[in-house]
């Protein structure tokens, strides 16, 4: 009994430290690979669910950050599959969530919705097409690559870029579902690799 009480006493500060956290809105993907990705988001904690080690399911419209902590110049791919309440998705690159929310640094944004696809760099429109549209329940692979000043974006079989930009490469890729609070999207097969160290 005394040993158990002693162990409980020892365990208490550890439990407090491990249970209590000021930012529970994070977890890791691809933990078993050489390029683990950190998922971090704002909003309700249940808004982002880890389906498996390569996939997340997003409910509502939280801002979800995928970050490769060890690389800024990366090649990343994912497969998107959304529901009927989802209007589309916006993927921001070459910025950080902090810079976006505090400084309005929007980086390069890929907006993929029911009207088509747009790629914008700040206020500059880089690409606009209405042949590539979001369609519910249809899976679409999106890949991005950042190397130096250039970015390439592939949607399905279409490749856009390279775009030269003044935005620095960052370790974050920000996913913002568009639509109502009922929207949900499955982001699966998320993979990344560093382009240069």
């Amino acid at each position, binding site marked *: 009994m005394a040993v158990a009480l002693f162990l409980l006493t020892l365990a208490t500060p550890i439990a407090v430290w491990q249970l209590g956290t000021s930012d529970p809105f994070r977890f890791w993907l691809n933990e078993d690979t050489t390029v683990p990705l950190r998922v971090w988001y704002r909003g309700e904690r249940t808004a982002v669910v880890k389906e498996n080690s390569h996939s997340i399911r997003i409910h509502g419209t939280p801002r979800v950050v995928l970050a490769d902590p060890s690389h*800024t110049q990366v090649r990343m791919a994912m497969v998107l599959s959304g529901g009927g309440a989802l209007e589309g998705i916006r993927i921001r690159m070459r910025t950080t969530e902090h810079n976006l929310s505090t400084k309005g640094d929007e980086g390069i944004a890929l907006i993929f919705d029911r009207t088509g696809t747009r790629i914008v760099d700040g206020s500059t429109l880089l690409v606009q097409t209405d042949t590539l549209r979001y369609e519910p329940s249809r899976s679409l692979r999106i890949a991005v690559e950042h190397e130096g000043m250039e970015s390439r974006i592939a949607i399905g079989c279409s490749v856009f870029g390279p775009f030269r930009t003044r935005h620095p490469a960052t370790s974050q890729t920000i996913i913002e579902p568009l639509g109502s609070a009922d929207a949900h999207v499955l982001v699966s097969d998320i993979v990344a690799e560093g382009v240069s160290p």
Partner: protein
Amino acid sequence: MTQRALVLLALPIAVLSIEGCSTLSLRAILTRTEQDKYTITVRDTTQQTTYRNAPGERGIIYPSDRAITATRRIEQYDSTTERHYPNFIRFGAFETVGLLATASSDRGVGGGIFGIYLDPNEAFSSEIRPKSALLTGSLYRFGILEMPLYWFDDAPTWSVGTSLGEIFQLEANNSRAVVGVFPLYIRKRFYLREEIPYVAVTAAAGFGFLPSQYLNLAGSLDVGSIGGLNIRTYAGLLIARSIEQQSLVQPYLGLGTSVLDFLNHPRELRRQWDDHEHSSWNIGALRLTPFLLLSGAPANSQQPSIGFQLQVAPTTIALPIADNRICAGVDLFNVVFAFRQKQTLQDAVGFGYGVLPLRIGYWLPFGDSRLTVESFAMYSYFPHSMWQVAATLHIGALEWLPVGISVGYISSAGFTVNRGTIRDVVDATILGFDIAYLGISIGIAEELFRPSQLRYNRAVQ
């Protein structure tokens, strides 16, 4: 009491040693660090053109041999920015509570309204004689930590916490004393006021494992923190086995205060430390002021007449009056050793100490710097009357270690102790004194805040 204090001190040290200081360092516990990484790429192309004209007369029009060398150069700069956020809901150094009706009225500890106004014969001592008192018991907590707890579908304002130790001294007799090391507490706050100073109703359930086993169910009305100061009223039920293995079920009411006790609203956990609002001009763990007596030393006192003042947990809160320069403050303890006087039978000392002395003053910063002049009047009302007027030039050149020059006057009515820790430490007859002094103040783990860091000025911005 001394044994309990030793246990409280030794066990946490042992645990911290076992668990490793590196992983439980205070900074890692209290601060969450976020990193952003960037790579900036600069591309530059240099073109070098070389003409190699053939020698000799070749007429006006002739082919030239031109070579263009284009050198493409890419430079990449990696940069990392770090942001630091608070990682805790509550972090406190010391809390003291006076408990009502925890024993018959003639067996009280006599700690007064906050449980800390102890008889100087018994302060810091293990021998407490029963006294007739309304607030019969005391509760002390040291090293309090609360972290946010996300459960019940992320219901807000839950926290899980512990403390280095807590002592329920329900009466003068130790048989019903309940002591816990690293007790586990679950708390839920209901905020009534969401601006500083916060007002909240808190429900708490605490479990103590060693050396006493207990369950503490409590509700409290909390006001604070402002400058690390808090006022709390408690109502609770303690179900315990005391350190002398006596089972007890004890309801209690209490009124308490705490110092160096910081509370973060959950929204503040997403605000960087640099952007946090401050209500105080200074907060510190200790301030030591060794001084030279300018007047008031008795003729046969030791020469040179050097004394010191020790302020424990000095806090100066800016009041939103006169450009926030009017300030009020409090220390947990204020100790003044003025002089030592050689006498035939027993030495005498000019000594005074105050519990929660009150201070009011004028804080004059120079620009937006940590160079400031504080002039103040301080009054100690317990256990004896002592007042002080002084002016200090604070220089916050080193982080957490500001120094200063202080000049002032202290008058103490003196008091008598016949036994106890104070008597043992002082080991002399205690005299009242009236002294003028010139000293050097050293703030240990003290922070001086710039005018721009005050929340009143931030609101203006």
